[in-house]
């Protein structure tokens, strides 16, 4: 785990918080490490330059919170290659930052997910929508914060959405992921190192319920079944510190929608003022097994 076998030197080395922006979560993590008298340095991912075959960075562990999914993956890939513990691992990030990969991993692990269809070319979007039925949700394969999602009610709407997708420059954005639209309660469970920590429900007048788009977060009781489902979903994508998003339908069925590999937890912290979220993550990092 230490790379050089020198446990004493490893314990004295600083933790690196690799982050593009210092948001509420990054502040909380820096404070949590400071309270543990563990030096934690902010490193802007945009400033990183490394030589392939070069020495490992002088950090005991890396908390990778780069905002760009592309840079985030490369940071974790580099850390893993040089033996520096990193949270989350590149395997986990690769599954979380691609919604097709997430859906496949969850289904393969027997996790209930909404009916999902993939269209590899925008021209097939109409047929894919007919396959899933209506209403359906078209999601970008990558991206967060509810950007680029569209709820469609018929084939005409699907073809219009996919025609626009076909004009995007990014080949990744021209991939199509469609899921059945289900009514219900939006839940998020934070999982740290295999254990569900806390849950919230997100409420909004809009069908896209993301706290980054104004949804209100409220504490939600973490029952054993919900905890177990979230923990299984986290394990299915490779484990680490993860935000598992679920939908609880009107009939009580719980479906996992996606898993966030660079989870924001400001809403969860605000809803659970008695739960030391950042402390739990810091302790997990310092346990020596952050992956």
């Amino acid at each position, binding site marked *: 785990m230490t790379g050089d076998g020198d446990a004493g030197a490893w314990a004295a080395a600083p933790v690196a918080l690799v982050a593009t*922006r*210092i*948001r509420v979560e990054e502040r909380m993590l820096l404070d949590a490490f400071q309270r543990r008298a563990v030096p934690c340095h*902010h490193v802007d991912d945009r400033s990183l330059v490394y030589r392939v075959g070069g020495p490992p960075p002088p950090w005991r562990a890396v908390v990778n919170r780069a905002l760009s999914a592309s840079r985030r993956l490369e940071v974790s890939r580099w850390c893993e290659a040089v033996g520096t513990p990193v949270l989350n691992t590149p395997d986990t990030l690769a599954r979380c930052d691609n919604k097709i990969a997430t859906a496949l991993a969850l289904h393969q692990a027997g996790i209930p997910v909404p009916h999902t269809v993939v269209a590899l070319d925008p021209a097939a979007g109409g047929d894919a929508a007919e396959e899933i039925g209506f209403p359906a949700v078209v999601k970008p394969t990558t991206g*967060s914060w509810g*950007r680029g999602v569209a709820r469609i009610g018929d084939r005409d709407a699907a073809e219009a959405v996919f025609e626009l997708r076909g004009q995007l420059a990014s080949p990744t954005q021209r991939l199509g992921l469609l899921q059945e639209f289900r009514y219900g309660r939006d839940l998020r469970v934070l999982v740290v190192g295999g254990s569900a920590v806390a849950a919230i429900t997100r409420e909004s007048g809009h069908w896209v319920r993301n706290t980054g788009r104004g949804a209100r977060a409220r504490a939600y009781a973490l029952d054993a079944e919900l905890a177990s489902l979230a923990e299984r979903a986290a394990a299915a994508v490779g484990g680490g510190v993860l935000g598992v998003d679920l939908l609880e339908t009107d009939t009580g069925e719980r479906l996992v929608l996606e898993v*966030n*590999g660079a*989870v924001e937890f400001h809403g969860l912290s605000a809803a659970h003022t008695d739960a030391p979220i950042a402390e739990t993550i810091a302790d997990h990092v310092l346990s020596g097994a952050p992956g």
Partner: protein
Amino acid sequence: MTVCPECQGQVSLPDTAMAAEIVVCEDCSSELEVVAVDPPVLALAPEVEEDWGE
């Protein structure tokens, strides 16, 4: 105090400001990134990129 790169208005940084934090110019509402704190340097915050997120 430092100067907003967009409108040249005066921007006051909190004592706890860190590089990579985002502040908002009260004069023009631009989102500004703290590039350095000693001395303070501000730049227009980058727009959200396609692959940014959780």
